[in-house]
């Protein structure tokens, strides 16, 4: 049962990172409850995709990347690799920046100064820590984010209008902006690296067929956990920031999210929640990138081995984390990186999801555990959606962002 932490830590990377929190806050501040449906939709898609990644790993003992390289060959793998790694790297920069912002509003020292120490701590945990430590530690710290839920309740939201917003509708004005935020929300929640991370985690935790029911529960519970908290951020923002006309273009504005609901602790809870959540997400992304390379090229990999036992794997995350600190030291605005990376995530989504449909129907890998028609229909809908997102995300970014 302790395995639930894998679900929570995956979910933190999907929902409780700088991208989701800022977009959810933006959505609430500008359009009230109206964009709740986008978070709900993202959560449902993510539950299905994560469940499938876990099932693939438990039954075939292959991670998604292993299977993709084997079935689709090196050239295709390499294209996906470039696309996913570039986007994941940008998200990593954004997360490290998110930790920096959290520390900046607490101490007043600008985030560029924090970039190097933060990267070092993330790297050190990867270097010395085990998978279990990272998984349990990150999800335990991630529980601080429950304060978002508490804050949303304290503001006495109108549940009937929140419920009504689960059905998509168009706003009176600002349609491009609305579309852009909707795409960003979905892009921020359905990130391909989550699937890669989760399936690798299932291998690290040595899952087998007996884990199939547990996997279903973990995927459902974990992603709902993140989705609900993301909804709480949107509601809190709609009730606390919208009346003041605040649009959340920058991080210091987002920091005011909980000051009305929890006058005494709101500010500090927000900062600490962001630091922990972004920290978990940064670890998850660094791991996902290193796993991606190691599995794709067939190297030894495990977070539980000492670095000298899987030198190339350790080398990849060392380099990636070092490189990610550079833009921050130079003062590149993490919020801008976040916004671009979310649109790019949407644009690269088909690259990750289309092969996934093939893998999940492969009788050699999954035997009788392959997708049924419900899962296949959901994946088909996600693929359709991902193509639409891929086509509209870049133009929307130019018009609405």
């Amino acid at each position: 049962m302790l395995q639930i932490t894998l679900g929570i830590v995956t979910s933190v990377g999907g929902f409780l990172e700088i991208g989701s929190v800022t977009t959810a806050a933006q959505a609430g501040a500008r359009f009230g409850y109206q964009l709740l449906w986008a978070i709900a939709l993202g959560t449902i898609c993510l539950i299905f995709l994560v469940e499938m990644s876990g099932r693939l790993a438990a039954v075939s003992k292959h991670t998604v990347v292993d299977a993709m390289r084997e079935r689709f060959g090196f050239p295709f793998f390499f294209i996906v690799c470039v696309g996913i790694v570039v986007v994941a790297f940008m998200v990593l920069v954004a997360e490290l920046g998110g930790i920096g912002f959290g520390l900046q509003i607490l101490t007043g020292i600008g985030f560029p100064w924090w970039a190097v120490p933060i990267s070092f701590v993330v790297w050190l945990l990867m270097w010395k820590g085990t998978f279990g430590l990272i998984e349990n530690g990150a999800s335990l710290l991630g529980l601080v984010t429950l304060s978002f839920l508490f804050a949303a309740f304290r503001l006495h939201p109108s549940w009937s209008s929140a419920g009504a917003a689960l059905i998509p509708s168009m706003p009176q004005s600002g349609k491009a902006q609305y579309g852009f935020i909707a795409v960003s929300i979905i892009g921020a929640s359905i990130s391909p690296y989550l699937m890669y991370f989760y399936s690798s985690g299932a291998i690290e935790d040595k899952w087998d067929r007996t884990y199939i029911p547990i996997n279903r529960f973990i995927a459902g519970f974990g992603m709902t956990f993140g989705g609900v908290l993301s909804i709480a951020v949107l509601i809190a923002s709609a009730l606390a920031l919208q009346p003041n006309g605040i649009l959340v273009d920058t991080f210091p504005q987002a920091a005011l999210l909980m000051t009305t609901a929890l006058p005494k602790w709101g500010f500090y809870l927000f900062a600490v929640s962001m630091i922990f959540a972004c920290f978990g997400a940064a670890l998850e992304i660094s791991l996902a990138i290193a796993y991606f390379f190691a599995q794709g090229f067939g190297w030894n990999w495990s977070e539980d081995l000492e670095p000298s036992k899987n030198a190339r794997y350790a080398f990849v995350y060392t380099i990636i984390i070092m490189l990610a600190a550079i833009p921050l030291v130079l003062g590149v605005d993490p919020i801008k990186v976040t916004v671009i990376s979310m649109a790019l995530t949407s644009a690269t989504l088909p690259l990750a999801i289309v092969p996934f449909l093939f893998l999940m129907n492969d009788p050699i890998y999954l035997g009788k555990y392959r997708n049924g028609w419900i899962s296949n229909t959901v994946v088909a809908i996600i693929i359709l959606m991902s193509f639409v997102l891929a086509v509209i995300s870049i133009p929307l970014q130019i018009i609405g962002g």
Partner: protein
Amino acid sequence: MGLVRDVLDKKLMDREDCCMGRVSGLVMHVSEHAQPRVTHILIGGPTPWMRIHPSLGRVSRWLAGMWGPKNGEAVRIPWSRVETIGRDIKLDVEAKETGALDWEIWIARHVIERIPGSGSEEEE
């Protein structure tokens, strides 16, 4: 059995279950009248890049000749060393001796083991 589906791009394990890369290519021997046979498994080097484009293969060979273990060619393992083809491909070889781990060893020596706490024996 399909060579592409069941062999190409599969992960290779040595006698001691150490990962030694993926099957990047396969060499087959063709002659006028005898049945074609697969003779060697290729690992790494320019082989996978060749599959994208021959020029990438050349760039990879040139770069690999300049840095690291300075070996620009793929590792060739005779097919007779194949033990089982299942989830992975198990070979009856010692990974370190084949050259498949040259890069792994080079990075371990030159980078990883120079950082404290890497868990290498020489450190203590």
